[in-house]
């Protein structure tokens, strides 16, 4: 009788859960169509879960363990409980297996309880999530008692046994119905998101990395995303998979500097707006129980699935949208593989292309870009002014070369010119056959694209591609990771396919092949700051480090480095949109550098150089890697 009660309650809950999940699926299914290969996704699901998701979760080993125990035990217990509905199967084997699964789950649940009630990491959301450990414990412990009782042949008096069944069933209901509303939404939506992920190439079964933005169709009736419904369905599904674990919040440089952006809340803003019916119903963010965007009160933002998302009184304040540096730290940390940056760019595209609401200086810079092909509005001929004495060979005159040196817009800046001179000096020493485009080089389009101005980006990209296609050269070398990313990962969509090497990798080649000979150890300590667009966007974290080691500097690592490095605050047009926070992002990053005690911070990106050099007060000197290498060559 107890067994029947047990399995029928679970069956009923599962059925209710299924209905609820279907109902909730309507929310994300209302999104725009997207071409998704479901079959391939389903096939790849286990691999993606076990490798890619696990890789992210395992960065916190305790979490990985309790998740494996809890989820494993829970998922194993469910079919067993369903099987218990068949009287013929109720035997010691079934009850024994069930007890085992539940015991495993109980272990995990205790760990969850420890984390949520004892450790209490600040980034975790409260609210419905608060009850999660109790639900897990109730389900695992109560059903464990019931399973053991059944194994022992039913020694407990039936009212007590029934009480245990009911207690466990409450826990089960909390968990299973939570699949629809949270906290366990991610179990179903997360899996579906892995199946229908908008960037399948980012998983290990494909390229392993996919960071280039997708081109927008400029002929479309609406450009960018205005409302939740303007996103493709599989992207809404992705937002809906968020478990509010807060890892993005911890990683976000804007959040760390108290700029009004919390990536977790940004995704939850989208989810809350999505929760309403599509007929214009409004809902506030009052139900959200985590950290808000710094400096903003909870409960004032309101929106709906069919209402504009961005605006001073809407779900997402413009400052929140424009505070993002597109550094991908949130994406890197998200165990649900949510693409925050894509969402930000889609929202920005609508703001810029449809509304013309790019803030502050950014609008003026976009206009200069359109008319002069560089953000400073300078004559393009002046890009090589700093090198008049270096007689840089022009590709237009040479016709072909081994290495095309892409100078980037940093070439207009006095500070960056210094490091470019160092790089040119090194290439000369190594006897490289190189050339520059000179006047023909236009802005790569990076800033325009991150600010949502896809039209200007596409124009610049097409014209750059046309220029590059006219010449013959071996590969492109650039000191600007933003240009590198755009040419390597985003120009292919417009028909431009070239090999692009970052100057750190290139210099390492020269050192390793003996074309540059080093004087021997130069001494001194250095810490290396990874540019987001080189590290996270392109996975290149080794070459610069090996180069620093090769020239004999004592290298110390910052609190955050490599793929998990923290942004300098210069990406995504953030210095132009200039959203104010309590601190500045580069100041926060410089604190990390100071904490290492290193004499110098090595940088490998013009933007990072400028941002970190703009930090005032006592700080390590900022040196571009090519400057350090030039010091060390014999």
């Amino acid at each position, binding site marked *: 009788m107890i067994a029947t009660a047990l399995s029928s309650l679970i069956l009923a809950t599962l059925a209710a859960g299924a209905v609820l999940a279907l109902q909730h699926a309507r929310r994300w299914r209302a999104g725009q169509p997207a071409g998704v290969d479901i079959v391939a996704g389903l096939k790849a699901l286990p691999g993606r879960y076990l490798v890619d998701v696990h890789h992210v979760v395992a960065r916190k080993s305790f979490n990985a363990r309790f998740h494996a125990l809890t989820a494993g035990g829970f998922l194993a217990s469910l079919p067993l409980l369903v099987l218990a509905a068949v009287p013929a199967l109720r035997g010691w084997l079934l009850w024994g297996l069930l007890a085992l699964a539940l015991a495993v789950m109980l272990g995990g649940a205790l760990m969850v309880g420890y984390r949520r009630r004892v450790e209490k990491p600040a980034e975790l959301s409260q609210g419905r999530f608060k009850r999660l450990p109790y639900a897990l414990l109730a389900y695992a412990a109560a059903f464990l008692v019931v399973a053991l009782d059944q194994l022992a042949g039913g020694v407990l008096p039936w009212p007590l046994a029934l009480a245990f069944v009911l207690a466990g069933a409450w826990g089960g209901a909390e968990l299973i119905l939570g699949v629809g509303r949270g906290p366990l939404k991610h179990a179903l939506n997360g899996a579906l998101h892995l199946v229908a992920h908008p960037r399948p190439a980012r998983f290990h079964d494909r390229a392993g990395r996919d960071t280039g933005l997708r081109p927008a169709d*400029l002929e479309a009736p609406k450009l960018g995303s205005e409302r939740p419904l303007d996103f493709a369905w599989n992207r809404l599904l992705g937002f809906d998979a968020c478990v509010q674990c807060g890892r993005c919040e911890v990683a976000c440089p804007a959040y760390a500097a108290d700029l009004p952006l919390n990536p977790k809340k940004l995704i939850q803003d989208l989810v809350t707006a999505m929760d309403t019916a599509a007929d214009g119903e409004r809902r506030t963010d009052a139900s959200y129980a985590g950290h808000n965007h710094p400096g903003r009160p909870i409960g004032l933002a309101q929106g709906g699935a069919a209402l504009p998302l961005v605006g001073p009184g809407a779900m997402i304040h413009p400052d929140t949208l424009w505070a993002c540096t597109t550094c991908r730290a949130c994406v890197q940390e998200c165990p649900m593989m949510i693409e925050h940056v894509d969402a930000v760019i889609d929202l920005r595209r609508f703001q*810029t*292309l449809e509304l013309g*609401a790019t803030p502050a200086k950014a*609008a003026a810079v976009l*206009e200069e870009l359109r*008319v*002069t092909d560089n953000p400073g*509005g300078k004559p393009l001929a002046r890009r090589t002014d700093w090198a008049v004495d270096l007689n840089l060979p022009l590709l237009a005159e040479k016709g072909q070369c081994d290495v095309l040196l892409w100078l980037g817009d940093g070439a207009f800046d006095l500070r960056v010119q210094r490091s470019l001179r160092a790089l040119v000096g090194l290439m000369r020493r190594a006897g490289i056959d190189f050339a520059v485009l000179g006047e023909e080089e236009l802005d790569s389009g990076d800033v325009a694209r991150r600010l949502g101005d896809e039209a200007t980006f596409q124009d610049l990209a097409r014209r750059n591609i046309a220029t590059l296609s006219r010449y013959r050269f071996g590969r492109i070398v650039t000191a600007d990771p933003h240009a590198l990313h755009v040419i390597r990962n985003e120009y292919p969509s417009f028909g431009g396919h070239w090999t692009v090497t970052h100057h750190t990798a290139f210099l390492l080649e020269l050192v390793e092949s003996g074309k540059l000979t080093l004087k021997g150890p130069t001494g001194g300590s250095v810490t290396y700051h990874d540019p987001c667009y080189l590290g996270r966007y392109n996975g290149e974290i080794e070459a610069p480090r090996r180069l620093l080691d090769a020239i004999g500097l004592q290298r110390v690592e910052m609190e955050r480095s490599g793929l998990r490095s923290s942004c300098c605050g210069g990406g995504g047009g953030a210095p132009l949109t200039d959203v104010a926070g309590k601190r500045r992002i580069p100041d926060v990053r410089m604190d990390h550098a100071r904490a290492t005690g290193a004499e110098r911070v090595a940088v490998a990106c013009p933007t990072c150089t400028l941002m970190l050099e703009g930090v005032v007060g006592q700080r390590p000197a900022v040196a571009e890697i090519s400057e350090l290498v030039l010091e060390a060559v014999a």
Partner: protein
Amino acid sequence: MLKVAVLLSIGRHPASGRPRRAPLDARALELALRLPGAEIHAVHAGDPAEPVLRDYLGMGLDRLTVLEIPAGSDPVPALVAHLKALSPDLILAGRCAEGGEDSGMLPYLVAQGLGAALLPDVADLSAGEGTATLTQALPRGRRRQAEARFPLVVSVHPAAPEPRQSAFARARRGLVEAVAASAPQDGFIGECEIRPWRPRPKRLRLAAGGSALERLKAATETKSGQGQVLVRPTADEAARAIYEYLVEQRVIGTS
């Protein structure tokens, strides 16, 4: 309802020489767009196929009338004829239209042609019944208020509010309406010799008087000053030195 005409020209970026919206005309349009309940008619005289015209549409205009005249011809007669038919209360234009002679005559000629009043260098305005209250920008940040009766031509000063961003999608959707117009060839420009501008040396104000040293200094002075340096004066000495210098430079009034 207030009927506002905005005269728009095509500017050129000083660094690249490429066409763009003329900054002052864009400000004129911005002022018009800020007038509550105004019926805005944007007019350009020139080539309707010029893509940059769409940048004005991107500021939030639905349509833009282009009086189709050949390049190098005088746009004034065509504009005056068009505006006579339209009879707007208020006509806004940048202080100096770009693309033609850049003489800044256009608002005056239009005002003369329509028999309208004209107020130059306007930074802000509000419209009332039959009159407008305008704020003029004067040198050194000074402002002056004036009232003027309609019909009124207003030329807009660079101190007027920054023009809003031109949105790509709105620019694409807006309508450019070409209207055939006749325009006499502009003989005056034809008489002129035109060549690229070469910066010429700055004329020194201190040409006469003073000692030879002073004149040499004036002639060779670079922007990296070679001024007086006071090292570690007392606070009072420093204050006096600064104040005296400011008085000497006529930054602080002495009367």
